[in-house]
């Protein structure tokens, strides 16, 4: 196994023990010297303490998922050791805090006690315990210690004492594991020849919004969407820009519509519970034809559910968040990189069709830090709405399709009315008006057929079609299956609704479209079936992402079984 060119390391302990930052430091350090790194985190919903773990997956090639088995576990307390050791692969290594007594009967793993804190104290910088760990890992996975030192020098540039202490910590950790055999050999990295970022999904969404020209942000704190609020409060400043912390998600959506009506590019971000509260307001946005981007960073539901775990169970609500006849556009990014482009596209769609657009992210993307190619902003187009610039006498809703939007302060007064309305915006109950306006609102969706999609091995009659952040593990499962000789195709898009029409046509031609998704009902599969696609879900609802190896086996079993799988439960 020492020849394996990738590694998964998990850090487990108590909140506040540096567990949260450890995986990020490891992945960032590795990425900064040319490897590919990705983190996965799950926290208890409490401020301090509580069992916490994070993990980093490092590789010479780009990585798509948190990884399956564990190669190395770093356990900071007994509970963490007992809870996680079962997931460490045979032959894997467990680094233990001296407070833990390893199970002598465990012959499957190499257990090494490392006095993290004590060694850190020797450096004069007690917070350097993480670097002691990194030093040890450097030995175990054959990443040159100098590469970590280079990272430390950059990260703490200008603070010589801190750099020195952390370098010493790296040395101490490395020396402590002298004589230990490496578990993997990551070897020399192939440093990409393009610029890169190391960034989380929430941050990528926030910067995408900035590039798209956001002017007004309003939001209420809720896990795991809060980092977007914090980003906006800090960065959406200066002339003509506003970030407001709302008193509830109801205030968020109403405020968003007010600002959109006043001519601004707007966004709010929330998670399941807040998203549900926004339902009526999103319907108002559809009815009054006001642009705005609503981010739902999904977590486990319903109700308070699993605030710090991942799930893809808001799809049906996202497609129809409001009562009444509406179909709100949905874009669901599948990777941290896509979060950026999805945000820009969501703004472009909202401004183009004049209505609310949902950006459906999820916990595992929001908190995932990853190296991604740096977007070339000059190549990411930004759109604005068509505005009315005439003198007066304009009727906002006169046309049977999209029409220019007047701006308060300028000629073209109208009433944005949540009741069914006539061409000026006055309330009406005429059947012919409701027909005309309903058709007008739906007709605008035709403007959004510019979504793109991925396809591979298109000649097969069976295909996988993941959505959202399941893209990564499903892609890995698909590649395992292809390597195995399984006849299966690959389709993926982040444009969930409206879905690119060419993609829908292709999927309709398949005998079976397998949709691995993180919810009980198989929400995407249900949606695809309503579109005439023979879709079947492969569900998981553990609060955790798919394991690629297990999933590939499930797909293989399903293909082998002539009967319909029991995937559709609802």
């Amino acid at each position, binding site marked *: 196994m020492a020849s394996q060119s990738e590694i998964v390391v998990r850090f487990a302990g108590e909140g506040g023990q540096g567990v949260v930052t450890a995986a990020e430091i490891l992945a*960032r350090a590795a990425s900064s010297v040319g490897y590919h790194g990705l983190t996965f985190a799950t926290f208890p919903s409490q401020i301090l303490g509580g069992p916490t773990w994070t993990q980093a997956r490092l590789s010479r090639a780009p990585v798509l998922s948190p990884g399956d088995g564990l190669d190395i576990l770093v356990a900071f307390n007994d509970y963490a050791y007992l809870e996680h050791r079962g997931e460490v692969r045979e032959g894997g290594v467990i680094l233990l805090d001296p407070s833990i007594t390893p199970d002598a009967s465990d012959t499957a793993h190499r257990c090494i006690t490392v006095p993290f804190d004590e060694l850190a104290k020797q450096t004069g910088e007690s917070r350097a315990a993480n670097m002691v760990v990194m030093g040890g890992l450097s030995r175990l996975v054959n990443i040159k210690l100098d590469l970590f030192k280079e990272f430390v020098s950059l990260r703490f540039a200008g603070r010589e004492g801190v750099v020195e202490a952390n370098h010493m910590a790296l040395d101490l950790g490395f020396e402590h594991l002298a004589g230990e055999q490496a578990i993997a050999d990551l070897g020399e990295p192939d440093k990409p020849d393009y*610029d*890169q*970022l*190391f*960034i989380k999904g929430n*941050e990528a969404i*926030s*910067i995408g919004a*900035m*590039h798209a020209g956001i*002017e*007004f942000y309003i939001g209420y704190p809720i896990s795991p969407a809060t980092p977007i609020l914090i980003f906006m409060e800090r*960065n959406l*400043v*200066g*002339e003509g*820009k506003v970030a*407001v912390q*709302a*008193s*509830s998600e*109801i*205030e*968020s959506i*109403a*405020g*968003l*519509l*007010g*600002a959109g*009506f*006043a001519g*601004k590019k707007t966004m709010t971000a929330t998670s399941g519970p807040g998203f549900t509260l926004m339902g*009526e*307001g999103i319907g*108002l946005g559809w009815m*009054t034809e006001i642009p705005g981007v609503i981010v739902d960073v999904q977590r486990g539901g319903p109700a308070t559910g699993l605030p710090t775990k991942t799930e893809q169970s808001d799809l049906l609500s996202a497609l129809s968040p409001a009562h009444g006849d509406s179909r709100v556009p949905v874009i669901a990014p599948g990777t941290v990189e896509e979060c950026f482009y999805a945000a820009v596209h969501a703004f472009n769609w909202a401004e183009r069709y004049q209505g609310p657009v949902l950006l459906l992210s999820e916990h595992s993307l929001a908190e995932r830090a990853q*190296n991604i190619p740096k977007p070339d902003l000059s190549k990411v187009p930004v759109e604005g709405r068509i505005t009315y610039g005439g003198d007066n006498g304009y009727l906002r809703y006169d046309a049977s399709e999209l029409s220019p939007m*007047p701006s*308060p*302060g300028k*000629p*073209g*007064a*109208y*009433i*944005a*009315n*949540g*009741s069914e309305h*006539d061409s*000026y*915006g*006055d*309330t*009406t*109950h*005429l059947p012919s*008006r409701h027909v005309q306006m309903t058709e007008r609102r739906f007709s605008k969706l035709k403007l959004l057929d510019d979504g793109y999609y991925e396809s591979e091995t298109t000649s097969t009659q069976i295909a996988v079609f993941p959505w959202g952040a399941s893209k990564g593990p499903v892609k890995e499962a698909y590649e395992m299956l292809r390597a195995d000789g399984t006849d299966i195709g690959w389709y993926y898009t982040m444009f969930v609704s409206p879905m690119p029409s060419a993609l829908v046509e292709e999927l309709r031609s398949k005998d079976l479209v397998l949709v691995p998704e993180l919810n009980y009902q198989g929400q995407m599969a249900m949606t695809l079936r309503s579109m005439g696609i023979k879709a079947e879900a492969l569900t998981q609802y553990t609060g955790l992402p798919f394991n690629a190896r297990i999933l590939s086996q499930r797909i293989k079993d399903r293909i082998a079984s002539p009967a319909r799988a029991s995937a559709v439960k609802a």
Partner: protein
Amino acid sequence: MSHKNPEYDFEWCPGCGDFGVRRALEVALRDRNAKNEQPMANSVVVAGIGCSGNLVHLLEGDQPYGFHGIHGRSLPIALGVKMASPELNVVVVAGDGDFLSIGMEHLAPQAGRNLNICAVVMDNGVYGLTKGQASPTTTSLTVTNSTPFGKIESPVNPLNLYLTLGVSYIASGYSSKPKELAQLIFDGMEHPGFSIVHVASPCTTYNDTYEVLKGSVKKGIQGTAWNIPADHDPSNVSQARAVIDEGGVPLGVVYKDTSRPSFDQQLDDLRSRTKQKTAGELLAAYDL
């Protein structure tokens, strides 16, 4: 613009107090536009849902922009409009049910922000559009179709509530005195902060309180409406509380605090202290 719009089929009942409020708002808007030399398009009327909210469709003459949203959410919609474009004159028109029941949660935040908008609340003490249910201001023991054995709850005292929450301009008016009401609304729009003009606006169909408000010499009824004396100092919070504690429906400016900066002034100040970064600069912070 409904008077020339045959499609719009909503009408207030004859004698509805909201007619007077509409007239007062038209006058206040006209005067304000003249004073500030601004076109009507610079004003936005955000309406709640109910008989009162229909006012936005019934304004005559030059039309402001309107936003007739969803029940209870006129204040947060106004928040968005005002913060997006602080140069706009933003007026909320809502009823007691909309403003003080379903929309109550939005009062405290706007008071805390001192959001620079003017809310005109038409209080008829009943849900009129849904045909006569008890509202937050319906008095105890009143029989309505939703309180067939008399209302059990105590009514809210709106002026007391506004003062407690820190609303920085509080006025109380009466729909049958549109001239005085116009002045209160005008002052509210000119006030640099959150202003509420609470108006007794009777419902002739479900809660006809004209006689209660005005009184009747013939029947020996003392009216509940009374004029706040000219020597009242609205900047004095103790005097404001004394006016409210007097009971009945005081007419005039109850409270006015001009010492607090408005939310948009605070944001202006914040903007002058902060520098906007481009997306490129923000991206660079994540460079590997």
